[in-house]
């Protein structure tokens, strides 16, 4: 398997709106349809959130899919450090968003996809670039063309 060059973190809202095929966020489903042309890392906070949003049976299917495709989708069970969570809280993130930002930093993720507007606005100018699913698709088209 050729490992795709781009390694992205998809926020929980992208997974949930994508799996719901939510009409208000069509780009989320479209982006999920492209997983494999970019790599995905799922950090602990997102896993825990998905665990509450999906049933046990649905999560079992999700884990099976991940395990069968570890070349382009990986799980990270490493907790974010409290120091970095506090750092991002002090920048204006809500605590939960701060955990996601800390995960992205620790995992060396340069590209975080989220529809969370507050998140998008708070973390401008940091090494972690945060974009919407629609913007991620444009980047993907540019990268692959």
């Amino acid at each position: 398997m050729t490992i795709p060059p781009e390694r992205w973190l998809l926020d929980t809202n992208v997974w949930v709106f994508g799996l719901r095929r939510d009409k208000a966020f069509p780009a989320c489903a479209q982006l999920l349809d492209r997983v494999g042309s970019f790599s995905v890392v799922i950090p602990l906070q997102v896993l825990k959130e998905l665990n509450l949003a999906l049933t046990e049976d649905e999560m079992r299917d999700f884990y099976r899919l991940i395990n069968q495709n570890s070349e382009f989708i990986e799980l990270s069970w490493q907790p974010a450090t409290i120091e970095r969570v506090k750092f991002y809280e002090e920048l204006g993130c809500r605590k939960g968003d701060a955990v996601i930002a800390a995960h992205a930093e620790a995992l060396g993720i340069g590209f975080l996809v989220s529809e969370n507007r507050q998140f998008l606005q708070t973390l401008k100018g940091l090494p972690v670039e945060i974009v919407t699913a629609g913007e991620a698709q444009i980047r993907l088209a540019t990268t692959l063309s």
Partner: protein
Amino acid sequence: MQSIDDLANVITELEPSEQQALLDKVAQLNFQKGLHELAEKFRARLAREGLLNAPSEQVWAELHRIRQQIAEHDYPA
């Protein structure tokens, strides 16, 4: 529909880079198929629970609640 043997013969005629690209594509399509099946299962359950057409604001509120609940538990003030 070609037999597996016929397909294998066609594939072995490809250049190694083309074979790799084909394997990558198959892996990606298999993942997409599994993800679509999961989405359908998720949507069917939401429909049974009367939540499939919930307004986005309601979904957002639930996602925010879940996020804060986990973060407050894992990183208490």
